């Protein structure tokens, strides 16, 4: 082959690289390994972890251990999907294009919106993009954010949009953990591009979307909802409640927790905002012979065509995770989605009631919840979380880890966020409550 290319040696192939920047010594990396050695090394690392999936876990806060049906992995493992690039050649990419069209349809159905894109990286970046979209649409610079929006999503929003300067303003929660709508109304004004709430919110409280939408629209701002897609089997579609943009995290639709990534961001908008939505869009069309087919469309929004005038810089998205999501949603089906929601809500209600019956445990989230809620403990939540690990429980997310991110005077060290999926059994919940009771009793005695 060297002769065919007219090179004297492999080294000769790189003759155009100036000697000053040629590397002659080997990279300081380990030597290569054969597959059995590779697997042994990876298994050793994996065995050094105790994954949440191997424990009785009540962790949530954006990532949930809902069951992933076996058939989902069978589909996404098909290498015609997994090893393809972005479908720039539609004639040979009808599989991923049609699946994406179906994903877009499912997201529109869940959210009650007209247009969904092909996916975003995660909820945080999707929220950042929503804010930029709102700023562009309204030509305003302020973002009014409920403190009930996941603190990490808010942090990503602040970081990613820092260059363009939207100014996020935080609206605190009222007693019971829902957004203070009076404060929301006071914060929204003539410079507000978007009003953002999360449903259910970070602490599990259910927000009054209709009232929040009215506040946003009265100020001339767009209404942005961060919605848990699985909750939408039971809860009103944000689009029906007046949302202009709906974003969120869809890892829980058929994707492994995988330490929080790759998850799946989604974004859906009204028809009016269609030409401003970032990312890929798949549209239906016909071929030369009038047969149905699907293509990437409205690409003049995108960076590879429009460069610096694009609506976003996003290129690679989370297509394979979106495929998992549409397979999962089809597996649930029209009846399964609300049935799963009701199942989780019943289990969460049961555990919440039992925890609140323990001495010293008080409600933080009040009112109805979906599958997650927060309680106030008589001790730092991190202590309980760590104390219960040896017994095989992950008690929940310690809200203290987000200290300072909920507004003035947030003292959340004693707040525990508890999520209950369909994977938890009554016996596990009863054992968990007993373990919490024992720990609290021991602490009181020691104290």
């Amino acid at each position, binding site marked *: 082959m060297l002769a065919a290319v*007219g*090179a004297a040696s492999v080294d000769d192939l*790189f003759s*155009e690289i100036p000697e000053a*920047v*040629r*590397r002659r010594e080997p990279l300081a990396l*380990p030597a290569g*390994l054969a597959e059995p050695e590779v697997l042994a090394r990876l298994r050793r*690392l994996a*065995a*050094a972890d105790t*994954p*949440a999936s191997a424990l009785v*876990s009540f962790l949530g806060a954006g990532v949930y251990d809902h069951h992933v049906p076996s*058939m989902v992995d*069978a589909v996404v*493992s098909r290498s*015609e*999907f997994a*090893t*393809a*690039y972005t479908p720039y050649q539609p004639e040979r990419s009808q*599989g991923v294009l049609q699946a*994406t069209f179906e994903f877009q349809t499912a997201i529109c*159905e*869940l959210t009650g919106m*007209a247009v969904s894109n*092909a996916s975003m990286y995660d909820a*945080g970046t999707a929220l950042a993009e929503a804010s930029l979209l709102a700023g562009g649409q309204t030509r305003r610079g302020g973002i009014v954010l409920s403190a009930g929006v*996941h603190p990490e999503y808010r942090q990503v929003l602040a970081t990613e949009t*820092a*260059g363009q300067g939207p100014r996020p303003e935080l609206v605190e929660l009222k007693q019971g953990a829902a957004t203070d709508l009076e404060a929301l109304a006071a914060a929204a004004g003539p410079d507000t591009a978007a009003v953002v709430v999360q449903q259910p919110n970070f602490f599990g409280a259910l927000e009054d979307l209709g009232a929040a939408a009215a506040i946003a629209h009265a100020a001339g701002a767009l209404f942005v909802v961060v919605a848990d897609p699985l909750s939408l089997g*039971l*809860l009103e579609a944000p689009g029906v409640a007046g949302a202009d943009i709906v974003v969120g995290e869809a890892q829980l639709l058929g994707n*492994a927790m*995988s330490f929080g*990534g790759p998850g799946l961001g989604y974004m859906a908008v009204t028809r009016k905002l269609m030409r401003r939505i970032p990312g890929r869009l798949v549209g239906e069309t*016909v*071929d030369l012979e009038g047969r149905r087919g699907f293509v990437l469309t*409205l690409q003049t929004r995108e960076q590879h065509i429009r*460069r*610096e005038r*694009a609506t976003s*810089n996003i*290129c690679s*998205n*989370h297509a394979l995770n979106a495929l998992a999501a*549409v397979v999962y949603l*089809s597996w649930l*089906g*029209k*009846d*399964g989605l609300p049935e799963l929601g009701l199942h989780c*809500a019943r289990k969460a*209600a049961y555990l919440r009631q039992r925890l609140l019956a323990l001495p010293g445990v008080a409600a933080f989230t009040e009112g*109805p919840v979906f599958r997650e809620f927060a309680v106030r403990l008589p001790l730092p939540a991190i202590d309980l979380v760590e104390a219960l*690990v040896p017994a095989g429980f*992950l008690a929940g997310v310690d809200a203290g880890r987000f200290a300072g991110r909920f507004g003035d005077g947030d003292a959340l060290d004693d707040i525990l966020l508890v999520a209950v999926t369909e994977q938890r059994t009554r016996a596990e*919940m009863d054992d968990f409550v007993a373990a919490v009771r024992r720990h609290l009793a021991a602490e009181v005695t020691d104290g």
Partner: protein
Amino acid sequence: MVELDRRTIFEKSCCGRRAFSLPALGVPEAPLDDLVPAALRRAAPARLPEVSEVDLVRHFTGLSALNFGVDTGSYPLGSCTMKYNPKVNEVAARLEGFAGLHPYQPEALAQGALELMFELGQWLAEIAGLSRTTVQPAAGAHGELTGLLVIRAYHEARGRAPRKVIIPDTAHGTNPASVVIAGCTPVAVPSDPRGGVDLEALRGLLDDDVAALMLTNPNTLGVFDENIVEVARLVHEAGGLLYYDGANANAVLGVSRPGDMGFDVVHFNLHKTFSTPHGGGGPGAGPIVVSEALAPYLPAPLVERTEDGRYFFDHDRPQSIGKVRTFYGNFGVLVRAYTYIVSLGGEGLRRVSEMAVLNANYVLAGVRDLFELPYERRCMHEFVVSATPLKEHGVRALDVAKRLLDYGVHPPTTYFPQIVDEALMIEPTETESREDLDRVIAALRAIVGEAASDPQLLHDAPVSMPVRRLDEAEAARHPVLRQRFPEDAEGCA
């Protein structure tokens, strides 16, 4: 021929059919009204399909058969590095100790994952020739934005606020788009007659307001910028920093390090260079590696190791730009890239680049007489030719691309970079055998022959795909972006 069934999964829905099953409830069946008040509940159900598991598996298996991946055949898509994705990577990413991790579980229970992220960061830093890595960015473009925000923070910490970012006219579209989102202004620098940055033009653009220069090297023409040391010197002298778009890093692993070339920030596309599958458009990962001077501004948290060998997330980074995504990055993708590096080692990675460059030169040698070569130079891991000689037959680069589909080869990137008329950008990658490369060459030679003898054949192509050419103009004029339901679709009789 029997028509392909192109119904969507929604159109295959059949009332009352289901794949779903729930575990036992085991707790009291609280009435729905007691759990979620009617005012908050949805009025109409989401019209998800009603199908059995068999329906579903057949539907999506059918769709997969309409797709083409690296496992299907040669995929010489320029700038995308469509190399084979080793299956052992998939096994590793699915190990329960990785896939079953929750991001908020205690760090003590995730020491293996943290060690993996820590080591991967160190290895990428060694490959880049720089010091610190963040694995947070989810894709190449996301790495660009992160790197630009880090560069801004660096300047601001020195009391400066330069806003110009210089980008060659050959750059990927994500570069200027990322610059705008970072709140900076892209300024184009033209290419010189050898395809590199035009040094005179660059000098004319350098002033106090230059924050950075973004460069892909080798660039999108597949040629190495021989003046890189001088380019770096000039930009640094003006107070700017250098950003390396690692989309083409597959050409230089262990052969030449961006840090040694003078770059301050590098992103790698793990889904290109480090063999993680593209997934039909993602997920990827776009970690960035920076110099010591830029390390304080990296997103938080970073993985650190204590003296006694314990790994932890360091959130205490007061000068950090913040967080560019939730949690820690596309961990599952990181596991695959880690597995790849463990498999190949340092020597193996260098061999990757050597074979990638050899393969590209081999294909170039096999087709150069067919097309116009905009730059008479040795190519690196990819090359760009112009299909303008075919214009006399009324044939365009697009026609060549579509006809390649009929030959079982995925088409190259077309009409990019924009400075080459009728561009075909070909990147075979190192994982193709000589026989594979010969097939690509033979297909291109046959097609150019057809262009002269029967150009209509090319205009009509593809003819062997599930669909013929699709009406993209109509799709954009009247966008249909979701399934429409007949009015009565909700009721089950």
